[in-house]
């Protein structure tokens, strides 16, 4: 199996770089979460606060580095990479879409209904 050679070079400097990157992203998230800049909260994009979009994008960014660098996904063959990543991403997107849509629908039903929920 010829692909092994790449595995054996030491990646220690890259590992530390990725660690610093992940730490910085986490610090940025925490700082944003504490100060909660007003303009990020007031602006909404596709019915979600801009701040929450930023959190989610930063999270996916972190997830990418954990998978690609720490879990060595970048070194795997295209076939394995796609089998793992695309399957998960497709199913998760579907799940999120369908459950959040349903949750929002139920919220509207509760709100427009004739029953009082707060008594």
């Amino acid at each position: 199996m010829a692909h092994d050679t790449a595995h054996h070079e030491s990646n220690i400097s890259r590992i530390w770089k990725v660690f610093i990157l992940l730490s910085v992203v986490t610090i940025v998230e925490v700082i944003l979460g504490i100060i909660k800049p007003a303009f990020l909260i007031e602006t909404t994009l596709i019915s979600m606060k801009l701040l929450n979009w930023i959190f989610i994008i930063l999270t996916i960014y972190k997830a990418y580095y954990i998978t690609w660098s720490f879990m060595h996904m970048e070194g795997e063959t295209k076939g394995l990479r796609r089998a793992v990543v695309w399957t998960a991403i497709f199913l998760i997107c579907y799940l999120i879409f369908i459950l959040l849509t349903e949750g929002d629908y139920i919220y509207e039903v509760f709100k427009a209904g004739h029953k009082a929920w707060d008594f």
Partner: protein
Amino acid sequence: METTVTKTGTEDKIWGGGNEPLKVSYGKMMMWFFIVSDALTFSGFLAAYGFSRFKFIDSWPIADQVFNHFPFLHGVDAPMYYVALMTFILIFSSVTMVLAVDAGHHMKQKKVIFYMFLTIIGGAIFVGSQAWEWKNFIKGEYGAVETKGGQILQFVDAEGHRVALKDVAILDTHKERSQHEEKNGIWYDKEATLPTYTIAELTNGFAKNTDLLIRTQELVPNLEDLKASGNAKKIAYAARLEKQLVNPEAKGEKAIYKREFSLNRLKNDTVGIVEGANLVHNEYGTPLFANFFFFITGFHGFHVLSGVIINIIIFINVILGTYERRKNYEMVEKVGLYWHFVDLVWVFVFTFFYLV
């Protein structure tokens, strides 16, 4: 990795199982597919959390107001600092794990031992921190009152800081009610523990202390939008909030009632007190929040715990030199994959539970 781990004797027989299109060993590939299925389980939980949150989008608890403890800093409002620290610990233990895998590629047994040791310590600290978070969440610090409709009413002072039940209640020393114990009854029955304070004691204390107000579960909507909507129902809703609330302008924050409405609700709508949180009652807001907290962080914590145990097993094998003799450290790589996955899940739990 080298195929030394899984020599099946079919290496040169392309049609006899010797063909490895994905160029990974069986064990590593199956670890990847296990991770995919486990990731789907976790996303199922998190998506269900999202579902419930969207369902109660205007009354979900605000994480900053729930998780604001830090060890040795009593009474200091420290939103998220501790979880952020936990996140660092887990990411760092992921880093030491990669370093162990890297050392394994170079067959450096001593280094693998050292880095795996650090990884295990990091994991143990994380599980311990998780337990501490649970303890704070379950015990609660202030307590709250529950209404007939299952809503939570919290006491706050003029600055909006929460006030504990013990500082609100004026104890009635002539209470007639004492706990019914097994020894007193004919049928050897006993009743559940009596609540620490009665509604009457709290109402009495609340009426006397004019500084106190009541904070509800409800989040203040954007009143300007409601008024401009032209919908009669929404306009009436906005008018009601403006009449009842101290903070009708604080969009997205928990609504706080004016004194007279606070007292009114406390007298007429309440059924009992809640201290801390369990699966049925939750002093921070809807019980669903507590349920998801216990379930998701519990399931993740269980993953970390099993990760630590698996790491310990592999750690012992490394010390015994099993992989030196095998001339291959692929087992370290496989547990490493699992360990990184646990970290990966935490990154998402952190975002959806504490940040968003």
